[in-house]
């Protein structure tokens, strides 16, 4: 039976983190080298945590499924990273970043965690500049900023359209330095297949070497999961092909509560789907909304003509264009938060105003920006994004408006963690996108990079010491303990079972079908009937998977189909939990929109009286209903009010 204790420190909001640091337990340098820490994942959170922990003196083992830690999906983040530096002198502060993040999350985040995030945001920028990250600069040599959705200040630092890449390469270089020093051991091309507990505490993991197929044991005093989000449950998403929920799912099955799985972010500016063979959706950075204007034709017949290829968007007169975000939300215009922008696009498309060959797209237009700023300025700001668009769609966005449509992008839900970032399993931590804590029901742009690096550089190194201080007398684990035997046996049996099915359908075909169910019934707008339908369909599909999936090849070799099968098997379980959580939450909030709960104007309507809580689900065994635990959210610094971007 799980007991949720958020362990929020005493004191006023602005003093909590300071109080925590003042009183947290420490580990002295000679003891640190006797303590082992496993970090799974080498994205911003994992790489920054592993490097920082190794610098402090711990012995670290780090794991990734990719061929190199530099390839983790943080690398694909484009737009930027937020911080409360207030360099542009436009009224920003730690409090305002905290406020915007909680409000952007639709009052469903834990205040104390978000305040800490805003506090350490400035340290991140300092750290990154010291590492040699080439942020954009002004002619005077100082750092440049731009604005992002959900904020009225310019607080976003960026490195062209490749901010995630540059920040990740910074963390990767710090990690590489520690690998060279022998303080971090790197295990690449490894899938984490389970977590091992000894006397209730996380003490290791079981991995599969993806090249040789060998099953391996790794032991440590603590385990940190930095394994990212689960957006690939939709099959088509902006996530990398290999991004998966499996490590977090194994943690859930080992006793870690899974929080708010239904909070998923559908990003408004992605390149639309073009065919059945499609494998992936490409994001166009939200930064484009700084200068691009979103519109659809006012008249349905114009939309029809465009769809039929008889009319070009440039032929539609200004007065016949509906800039629907500017019309509906004059205060924020094209810079409303992502969930609001996504739903507004769906609303227009559903009403028959969509454009493009499929009719499932809206325009993002730079004509006005090019007129105002000149082509060269637009090119300097967004050149690489325009090039990417042109390569995929074969149209020139400088002369014809881009087509965009929302797609699954980020997951706010994840493993439940307390203020220490520890899950409900002692010694098991979750950082970055893998946890649930900072973004509430919706994440603002440029906040994912901030959270990943905050957790890894500046939060976990403090909070993990508080746990490890009590562990200094615990001798190193060897992996020969009987608990490792048991878990390894289960892992081997599952692989054997998957290989023995020898059915007719490929892993991808199941993944696609799951994606269809999720997008149809658990997507941008949800209702009771659809969610119940999903709860019927997903278990049926899962059953079919375990009877009819075909995995060619052998276990003791490089076998990509086997890797994917394990991941899809877990997605088939997760999908059900997402639907269950979405069904339970009858209010609309952030990325979770229940059709039953909206205002007469079609805006999301929250139900603070009944749902101001974190839904944390406890695994009760296969075939059993999970148990819901509630962490009630209290708001001290911010007043609970409905969001308003009008």
């Amino acid at each position, binding site marked *: 039976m799980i007991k949720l204790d958020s362990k929020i420190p005493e004191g006023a909001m602005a003093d909590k983190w300071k109080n925590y640091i003042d009183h947290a337990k420490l580990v002295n340098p000679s003891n640190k080298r006797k303590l082992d820490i496993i970090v799974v994942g080498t994205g911003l959170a994992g790489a*920054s945590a592993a*490097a*920082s922990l190794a*610098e402090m003196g711990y012995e670290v083992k780090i794991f990734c499924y*990719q*061929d*190199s*830690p*530099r*390839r983790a*999906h943080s*690398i*694909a983040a484009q737009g930027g990273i937020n911080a409360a*530096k207030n*360099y542009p002198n436009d009224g920003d502060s730690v409090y305002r970043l905290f406020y915007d993040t909680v409000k952007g999350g639709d009052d469903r985040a834990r205040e104390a965690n978000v305040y800490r995030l805003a506090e350490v945001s400035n340290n991140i920028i*300092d*750290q*990154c*500049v*010291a*590492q*040699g*990250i*080439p942020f954009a*600069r*002004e002619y*005077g*040599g*100082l*750092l440049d900023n731009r604005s992002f959705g959900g904020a009225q200040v310019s607080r976003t630092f960026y490195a*062209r359209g490749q901010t995630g*890449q540059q920040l990740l390469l910074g963390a*990767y*270089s*710090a990690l*590489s*330095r520690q*690998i*060279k020093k022998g303080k971090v051991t790197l295990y*690449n091309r490894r899938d984490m297949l389970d977590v091992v507990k000894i006397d209730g505490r996380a003490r290791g993991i079981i991995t599969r070497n993806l*090249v040789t197929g060998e099953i391996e044991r790794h032991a440590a005093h603590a385990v940190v999961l930095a394994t990212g989000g689960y957006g690939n449950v939709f099959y088509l998403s*902006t996530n*990398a*092909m290999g991004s998966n929920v499996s490590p977090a799912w194994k943690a859930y099955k080992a006793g870690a509560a899974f929080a708010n799985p239904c909070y998923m972010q559908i990003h408004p500016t992605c390149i639309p789907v073009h*065919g059945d*063979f*499609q*494998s992936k959706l*490409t994001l166009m950075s939200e930064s484009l909304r700084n200068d691009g204007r979103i519109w659809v034709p006012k008249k349905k017949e114009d939309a029809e003509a465009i769809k039929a290829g008889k009319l070009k968007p440039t032929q539609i007169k200004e007065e016949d264009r509906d800039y629907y975000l500017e019309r509906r939300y004059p205060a924020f215009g094209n810079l409303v938060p992502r969930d609001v922008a996504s739903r507004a696009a769906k609303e227009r498309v559903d009403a028959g105003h969509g454009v493009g060959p499929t009719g499932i797209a809206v325009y993002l237009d730079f004509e006005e920006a090019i007129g105002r700023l000149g082509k060269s300025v637009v090119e300097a700001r967004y050149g690489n994004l325009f090039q*990417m668009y042109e*390569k*995929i769609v074969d149209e020139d966005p400088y002369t014809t408006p881009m087509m965009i449509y929302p797609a699954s992008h980020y997951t706010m839900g994840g493993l439940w963690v307390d203020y220490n970032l520890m899950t409900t399993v002692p010694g098991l931590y979750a950082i970055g996108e893998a946890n649930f804590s900072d973004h509430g029901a919706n994440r603002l742009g440029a906040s994912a990079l901030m959270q990943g690096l905050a957790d890894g*550089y*500046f939060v976990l190194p403090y909070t993990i010491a508080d746990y490890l201080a009590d562990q200094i007398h615990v001798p190193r684990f060897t992996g020969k303990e009987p608990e490792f035997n048991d878990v390894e046996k289960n892992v081997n049996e599952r692989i054997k079972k998957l290989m023995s099915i020898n059915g*007719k359908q490929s892993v*991808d075909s199941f993944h696609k079908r799951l994606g269809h169910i999720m997008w149809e019934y658990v997507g941008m707008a949800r209702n009771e009937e659809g969610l119940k339908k999903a709860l019927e369909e997903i278990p049926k599909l899962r059953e079919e998977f375990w009877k009819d999936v075909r995995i*060619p090849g052998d276990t003791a070799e*490089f076998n*990509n*189909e086997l890797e994917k099968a394990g991941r899809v098997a877990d997605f088939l379980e997760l999908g059900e939990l997402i639907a269950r959580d979405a069904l339970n939450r009858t209010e609309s909030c952030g990325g979770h929109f229940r059709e039953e709960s909206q205002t007469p104007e079609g805006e999301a309507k929250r139900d603070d009286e009944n749902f101001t809580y974190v839904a944390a689900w406890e695994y009760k065994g296969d075939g059993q209903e999970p148990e819901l635990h509630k962490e009630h959210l209290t708001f001290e610094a911010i007043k609970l009010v409905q969001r308003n971007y009008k």
Partner: protein
Amino acid sequence: MDLTLKIWRQANAQAKGKMVEYKVTGVSPDSSFFEMLDVLNQDLIEKGEDPVAFDHDCREGICGTCSLYINGRAHGPDSGVTTCQLHMRKFKDGDTIFIEPWRAKAFPIVKDLIVNRGAFDSIIQAGGYISVNTGGVPDANAIPIPKVNADAAMDAAACIGCGACVATCKNASAMLFVAAKVSQFANLPQGKIEAKRRVQNMVAEMDALGFGNCSNTYACEQECPKEISVSNIAKMNREFLSAKLCADVKDI
């Protein structure tokens, strides 16, 4: 589109490989090169054959995982793109397409079209960083950096570590990869302090790993999906020479 594919198949690092012919039909010109290979693999799986193993992940041209040598060119016929950004509209109906892995001594084959690029990680570990620990650093705006230098650093830093430069070089040289990292830091004041040590260590590691010498053909710049300039190699050579001439570098 109907296509004939000739693909390098090799079961593992030790096995002997060979080119194998496959046919794919009904490929949409709007699909990406990998979506075409997905269609082939789906077909092979249904027939009970082993699908073709290839490296890929983000499928949007930034992670650097994909690495196919297509019709004798790294990342195929288009310029300024990775394999995952290559679209079938660059080919014609009825084409025969040759698909091979990167070929370089320092990149041994893992399976089929997948190679081990761990050598690139080793080069970065030898010095591709600024030696600062987490915390205790100055304010981000404490050192103004001229925009031109920051932009030049960013141009070099855009490298995705895919290895196309090595694959396309007749000497399998890693000079462009190493130069990009050396040049990024050489353009920034933060990187100057360790510049000499960095360039010597990285070059020594590159040589030890079996990469060849620069061929001076500029093929690397041609095939680089991020269009990293060979002028970075000149900058690295200057850095390297000045480090060599400088007597005070003992700690390398």
